[in-house]
Each structure stands twice: as structure tokens, then as C-alpha cells.
């Protein structure tokens, strides 16, 4: 422990083709310019890959990253980030998971691990402090996630080893396979487990016993109690922290349904009648809660273990389900069978599947079937239906559960089609199937709906990884954090900002969230506490970053803004280089044209354009092409990126930036 800040100080580069492992010192310049997590990941992906790098090729990289906060006492810093190019969407991919893997990597002495090449035979990477080995994983190939964990634990003779691995889904190249760490924590979206499977890397197992320091110990001691207080009844959002601690993230099910935003029947509507009494937080807690769990050093403590106590699957036990999984395997099929939900969550966990995409790829097929686009001939005799009456839930979900397993192993042509994800499957089916393929830029829409929550429409449209809820979602309008809006914004705007159905100013709000989360994902804080409930904001980051890293320049909002924009625009530039244009900043027609048919938000559609204009105005993108401004890239310190894009004719010298005429003070001007 000789470091002067909270970074581990080294990184690992593993070439799976040659088996060569290199340990290098983490360049300070890289950390200073990109902080860690997605920021550093974006920089490495930008430099070491190009538009010719196919997602499933030895040239694609898979990078496991931590940030300056992992492994420290900061109360919610358990996450690690994985970045790559997505085999599901073809665009930029980042995904993260909590648990214990990220901190352990830092305790072993490493900030990040770059995986490149493709191994001739299945291997796993074992890191025990200074010992790093590629070990054979031939005996692990085909094993489920829990089996893999148990075998590796036994093999290395240490039950405290932290393992990130893939299940059969990743091995079989299901495009939305995820990486599972600590048994049940998923690096969920974008199919990063598929990249790992392609590279024949079964697992990364880490054990570390080294310590971490911090740049300013005294300042940390002064602020620590203030941070901890936010997770106690003295905190401003105790009500929400305590709801998460009691129920986990599925407390959201009730709240989302109350505002008509709980995706139901493949995003047909946002309201599931009687959800509170069937799939809501109370029944789930009562019927399935087994014991409490947590991520490393967390103040919120939203994890728990669920079990099935009756019926065919009695005894099934797994961590979770989270809100997104609840939605994907209940209201998404109009099902009220929570046993099937716990079972689906368990199956996705042991096989290593993204629950959101898995649920939605199947509900897409169901809607195609219901509308005659798919018949029993296409589905190999499967009768795919939504639940018509609650009492039929179990029967319908039985087909879904079977299909989940069939997808993992590619049992027949139909399940192999669904292995490719909604977008590709719809293209291959044709016959108008895209009407029911609810994705944005290749990523299936998560448990949100832009019609009752307009700003989410922009979130989905401009996110670098497609329709996800973690890159720029604003919870302030969603859940009505009026007190927080008053604290943060011009009082005159508060009512407009708080109105979920009002598109005005939401472009600015989403852009601000995108910048905030770029920092959050680089420091690697959890979205719980930064998004919901909003315990931290830029004013906290201005203190946190210098205390942990010693990068004093980031106590200045202007410099912090440049850092955030650098990360946001570099990720976008990665996609621009791959061919992203303004056309990609769009939504599925269902969200723009089909008014929500039922529930509290009945009749609402999402009007994207006004928000997109505001967003382009603030990000200084060209309204015609969606390309970035050369001057702006130079301003935020991305001169080399501007230069490369210029060579490819993908940057604009004088962009046509929309003028909305609205007055908005950027956060870097508001916060002192």
C-alpha cells in the first residue's frame, strides 16, 4: 500500500491467443483525463479498436474496470464496469455489476484488466495478488454459474475468491448472455457474456489482500459521517432508502404502476391491473423473501434472497429478482405467477442471461404469434400466448420458462432465432415483425415506457447503448422528487421539470443526467443513491473526486464539466466512427405513435423532437447529421478524436445547432 490515492496503480493485459499476460503501471494521465470505469474504458476502446473491429472477433477487447471508489469505505462503491463492442447491438457496450468482484480486483492490486484475442481452448483467468495465471477451463465448459463458482472455489482452495463467469448462454453465443459475478450479480446488458464466450474465457477469479489508500485522509474522515447519515432516518430520502432496504428494487413495481409506467404486454401499455396485490412489493416480500444480502460496503442494502415455497419449483432459491426482472417476467406477459418469476430469475442467473432482454425477446415473439406473424410452424409447435385470465398464468409461463432453457441451448431453429435478440430476429422473420420488436438501436427496451415519462423517450433515443435506463434516465420527474428539483434548478422551471408529461426542458435535464452518470459510471458509484433516491449530485462529486484521487482540478465545476463531456462525447464518437447518425437518435414507433391504451397515462405518446433539439443544442451536435462539433471536441480535450473523425469526414466544423430559445443554466454554472 504505497499509493498516494485510492487507485490500485496497476493493470493487467491478457492476450488469450498467445496466452501472454502483462502487468503495467496505470498511466496517471489516463486516470486524470478519464477517472476510471467507463471513462477509461471508452479511451482504451477508442485507441485499441476501430470500425473494422467486429464484436465477435479476436480483435475486439473486453475490459473489466474499476474506479477510484472501489474497495474504499465510500458507502456504495461495490460496482465494476465491463466495456466492449456489443454483439447484440453492434454499438458501444458498457454494463456493470455490484457485489464483491470489483473491490477484490482492487485489493489484488489492479485497476482494470484488458482481455484481447481468442483462446484456442476454454480457459479461466486466476488472479491472486501478484500471481496471474490462465488455467484450463475445459472441465468448466458447459457448467452453470453456481457449478462454475463451486468448482473454482474448490480448485483454488479459497472460498473467499470472487468470480465473474459466464454460463452456458455465453458459451453458446446467445447475443444477450451476461457475465455473472458473485453467483447472482449480472453484468447484464449488451451481451458481454457472449463476447467472453466467443473468446473462450469461462471466468475471471480474483483474490486480493492488499490495501488501498486515499489522497486526503483527513477530509475523508470529516465527510464520512455526512455520507453515512444519508442512509439513516436523519437522511433526506430515508423513506426511499428504507423502502429499498425492506423490499429491494421491486418497491418500484408499485410506484411505476401507479403512474402507468409499468411495461405490460410487450410494452403495449404501462398499467397492469391489480399489480400491487399480485406482483407488487408486499406480495413478493411476503411470499418469497428469504434473507437479506448486500453488495460490498453498501449503505442502502437492497439485496435479498428469494425462494419458491410451493408448487413444481418448490425449493428454487436465488438472489433477486430486481424490478426489471419482475416486469420482464410478469406484467410483460400479463402473468401474476410470482413462482414462475422467481424460477425465470433463477434460470437466467444460472445460465447467465440478461433478464430484461430474455423476457422481452420472448414477449416480442408472443406478440408476433398473437398477431399471426408467427405460427406454430415457425415456433416448432409452441403455442405462444399472453395471459388472458390471471388463473392461466402458470400454464402460459410454463411455455416461457421452457423457452428460456431452449434459447440457452439453441434446441431448435426457433430458439436459435431468438438467441440473436429482438432486432435481428425481427429482420429475419420479416412480414412486419419489426412493429412488435420493441428495441432502440438493437437493445430491447427495459422496464420503462417513454409515453408516461417523456424524458425517458430522449434517454432511450440518444443512449450510446440503446434503450437502457442507466445512461441518462432522470428519476426526478419520474418519481416526482420536487424537493430535489427545487434544490437543483431555477424555481420557475420546477413545475415544468416535475411534470412527467411535459417535454419542455427535458432535453437539458436528460443531458445533465447523462453527464452526471458518465462521472458516476467512471467513479463507479451505484445508480441507487445517484439516480434513485437522489442522495448525491455534482456538488458531492466536486468533493469526492479530489478526496479520493487527489486530482484537485475537479473541485472546479468547469473542469468537472469538461471531464464529464469528454466521457460522454468519446463514447458517442465511438459509435459515430461505427456509422451512427442522426437517424439512430430515434424511438420505436410504438412509443411515438401508439397512444398508451390503459391506465393513469392513457392517451399519452412521446414527442421526441423538441427534446432532441434541446439535447443537440447542449451537446452541440449537428442537427442534419448528428455528428459532433470539431470545436467542441477540441474544447473538452478530445483533439485527437476530432482529428481522426475529421479524416473520416465524421465531424462538423460549423454544425447547425438547433436554437430552442429556451433559457437553461448549465449545472457547471449553477453549482459552486
Amino acid at each position, binding site marked *: *500500500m504505497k499509493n498516494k490515492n*485510492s487507485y490500485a496503480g496497476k493493470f493487467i493485459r491478457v492476450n488469450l491467443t498467445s496466452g501472454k499476460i502483462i502487468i503495467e503501471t496505470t498511466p496517471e494521465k489516463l486516470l486524470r483525463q478519464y477517472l476510471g470505469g467507463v471513462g477509461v474504458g471508452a479511451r482504451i476502446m477508442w485507441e485499441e479498436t476501430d470500425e473494422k473491429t467486429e464484436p465477435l472477433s479476436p480483435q475486439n477487447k473486453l475490459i473489466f474496470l474499476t474506479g477510484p471508489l472501489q*474497495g*474504499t*469505505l465510500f*458507502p456504495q462503491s461495490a460496482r465494476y464496469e465491463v466495456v466492449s463492442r456489443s454483439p447484440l447491438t453492434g454499438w458501444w457496450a458498457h454494463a456493470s455489476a455490484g457485489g*464483491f468482484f470489483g473491490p477484490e480486483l482492487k*485489493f489484488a492490486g489492479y485497476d482494470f484488466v484488458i482481455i484481447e484475442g481468442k483462446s484456442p481452448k476454454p480457459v479461466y483467468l486466476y488472479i491472486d495478488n501478484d500471481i496471474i495465471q490462465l488455467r484450463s477451463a475445459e472441465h468448466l465448459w458447459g457448467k452453470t454459474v*453456481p457449478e462454475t*463458482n*463451486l468448482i473454482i472455489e474448490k480448485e483454488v482452495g479459497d*472460498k*473467499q475468491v470472487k468470480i465473474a463467469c459466464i454460463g452456458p448462454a455465453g458459451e453458446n453465443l446467445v447475443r444477450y448472455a451476461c457475465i455473472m459475478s*458473485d*453467483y447472482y450479480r449480472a453484468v447484464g446488458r449488451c451481451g458481454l457474456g457472449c463476447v467472453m464466450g466467443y473468446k473462450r474465457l469461462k471466468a475471471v477469479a480474483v483474490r486480493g*489482500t*492488499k*490495501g*488501498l*489508500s*486515499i489522497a486526503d*485522509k483527513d477530509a475523508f474522515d470529516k465527510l464520512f459521517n455526512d455520507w*453515512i447519515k444519508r*442512509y439513516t432516518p436523519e437522511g433526506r430520502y430515508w423513506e426511499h432508502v428504507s423502502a429499498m432496504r425492506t423490499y429491494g428494487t421491486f418497491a418500484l413495481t408499485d410506484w411505476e404502476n401507479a403512474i402507468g409506467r409499468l411495461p405490460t404486454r410487450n410494452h403495449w401499455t404501462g398499467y397492469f391491473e391489480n399489480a400491487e396485490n399480485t406482483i407488487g412489493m408486499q406480495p413478493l416480500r411476503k411470499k418469497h423473501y*428469504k*434473507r*437479506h*444480502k*448486500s*453488495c*460490498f*460496503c*453498501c*449503505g442502502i*442494502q437492497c*439485496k435479498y*434472497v428469494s425462494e419458491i415455497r410451493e408448487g413444481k419449483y418448490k425449493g428454487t*432459491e436465488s*438472489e433477486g429478482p430486481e424490478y426489471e426482472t419482475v416486469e420482464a417476467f410478469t406484467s410483460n406477459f400479463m402473468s401474476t405467477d410470482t413462482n414462475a418469476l422467481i424460477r425465470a430469475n433463477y434460470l437466467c442467473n444460472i445460465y447467465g442471461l440478461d433478464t430484461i432482454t430474455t423476457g422481452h425477446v420472448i414477449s416480442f415473439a408472443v406478440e408476433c404469434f398473437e398477431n399471426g406473424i408467427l405460427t406454430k410452424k415457425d415456433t416448432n409447435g409452441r403455442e405462444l400466448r399472453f395471459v388472458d385470465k390471471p388463473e392461466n398464468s402458470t400454464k402460459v409461463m410454463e411455455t416461457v420458462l421452457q423457452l428460456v432453457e431452449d434459447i440457452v441451448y439453441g434446441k431448435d431453429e426457433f430458439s436459435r432465432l431468438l438467441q440473436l435478440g429482438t432486432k435481428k430476429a425481427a429482420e429475419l422473420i420479416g412480414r412486419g415483425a419489426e412493429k412488435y420488436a420493441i428495441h432502440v438501436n438493437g437493445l430491447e427496451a427495459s422496464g420503462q415506457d417513454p409515453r408516461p415519462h417523456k424524458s425517458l423517450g430522449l434517454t432511450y433515443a440518444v443512449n450510446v447503448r440503446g434503450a437502457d435506463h442507466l445512461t441518462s434516465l432522470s428519476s426526478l420527474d419520474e418519481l416526482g422528487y420536487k424537493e430535489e428539483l427545487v434544490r437543483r434548478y431555477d424555481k420557475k422551471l420546477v413545475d415544468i421539470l416535475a411534470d412527467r408529461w411535459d417535454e419542455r426542458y427535458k432535453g437539458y435535464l436528460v443531458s445533465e443526467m447523462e453527464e452526471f452518470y458518465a462521472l458516476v459510471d467512471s467513479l463507479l458509484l451505484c445508480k441507487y443513491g445517484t439516480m434513485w433516491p437522489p442522495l448525491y449530485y455534482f456538488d458531492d462529486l466536486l468533493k469526492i473526486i479530489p478526496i479520493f484521487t487527489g486530482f484537485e482540478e475537479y473541485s472546479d465545476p468547469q473542469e468537472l464539466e469538461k471531464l464529464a463531456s469528454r466521457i460522454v462525447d468519446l463514447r458517442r464518437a465511438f459509435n459515430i466512427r461505427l456509422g451512427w447518425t442522426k437517424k439512430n437518435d430515434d424511438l420505436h414507433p410504438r412509443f411515438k405513435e401508439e397512444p398508451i391504451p390503459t391506465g393513469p397515462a392513457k392517451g399519452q405518446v412521446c414527442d421526441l423532437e423538441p427534446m432532441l433539439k434541446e439535447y443537440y443544442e447542449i451537446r452541440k451536435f449537428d442537427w442534419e447529421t448528428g455528428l459532433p462539433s470539431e470545436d467542441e471536441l477540441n474544447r473538452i480535450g478530445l483533439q485527437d478524436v476530432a482529428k481522426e473523425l475529421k479524416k473520416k469526414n465524421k465531424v462538423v466544423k460549423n454544425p447547425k445547432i438547433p436554437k430552442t430559445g429556451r433559457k437553461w443554466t448549465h449545472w457547471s454554472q449553477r453549482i459552486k
Partner: protein
Amino acid sequence: MSKKILVVDYEKCSGCRMCELVCSWRHKKEFNPAKAAIQIVTMREKSIDIPIICQQCDKAMCQEVCQPKAISYNIEYHAYVVDEKKCIGCKMCISACPVGAMNFDSDKGVSIKCDLCQGYPQCVQYCPMGALLYIEPEKANLKKKYIVAEKFFSEFLSGRRST
């Protein structure tokens, strides 16, 4: 100060390891679970987390095997403490400890042992779940007694079953 002991409510522990980090930070000024005097043993496949703590045994084997007499009993806060100046790093205490609560600081070459933070155990203060208690030994099992009493009441005294 009256004698108090550390007690774990195993039902409540979520395995977050906040206690470990608080311990290493307060004692060693670094973030390192490996240098904490309290450590959580996890069986992830069963989702079970059990904090292993120094029990401050009445017959302390760590003290008895310590040749340089580096471990002494502090009567003020009722804990056995390691004198880092006297500790020679022989690790006999680690072998002797019946519950495996002794740890070792390889950087300094000294044993790590819970000293109850001079009577203000930080792990207790910062446990988010309230799974750690610092109470008089005479009252330690009061909670369990109440659970048993309530069960007894509902089983026998409430009239559902006669004795």
C-alpha cells in the same frame, strides 16, 4: 466501564463487509478487509454470511501462547490487546485461537486482534443492518429469550395447545 461484549445477530448480517473496512480504516488507516480484526465468512452458494469476531475469551489462548507477552488484558474496556512493539510476528496466537479470529498484518509483521476500539467498537457503530451488538454479557441473549418466550406463549399459553 462495565464489561461489555461483542455479539452477532446472525439473522441480520447481510454480508456487506462494512465492519471489515471500518475496522481496517480506524486501526490501520487503509482500506483492507484482510487487515480487519472482524471478518465475514461467506458461503455464497448458500447466501450465508457469518461475521467471525474475537470472543475476548476468559481463558485467552492467544495470550497464553504469546512468548514475548505482547498480548495483555485491558481491564478498562475488557479486551485483550496486542502490543505491536512487543509482538515478534511468530503467529503462535493465530494457530492457538479457537475461533480463527486472529489475523496478521504482513506489512508490519504483527498480529491483528480486536481491541474493541477502546470501548467504542466502530464495527457496531457503522453496521447498516444493526447486526452487531455491544452489550453486557448478562443481557446478551435477552432478544433470543424473548423470541423463545413469545413462541412459548403462542404455543402453550394462548390456549391453542394445553400443557
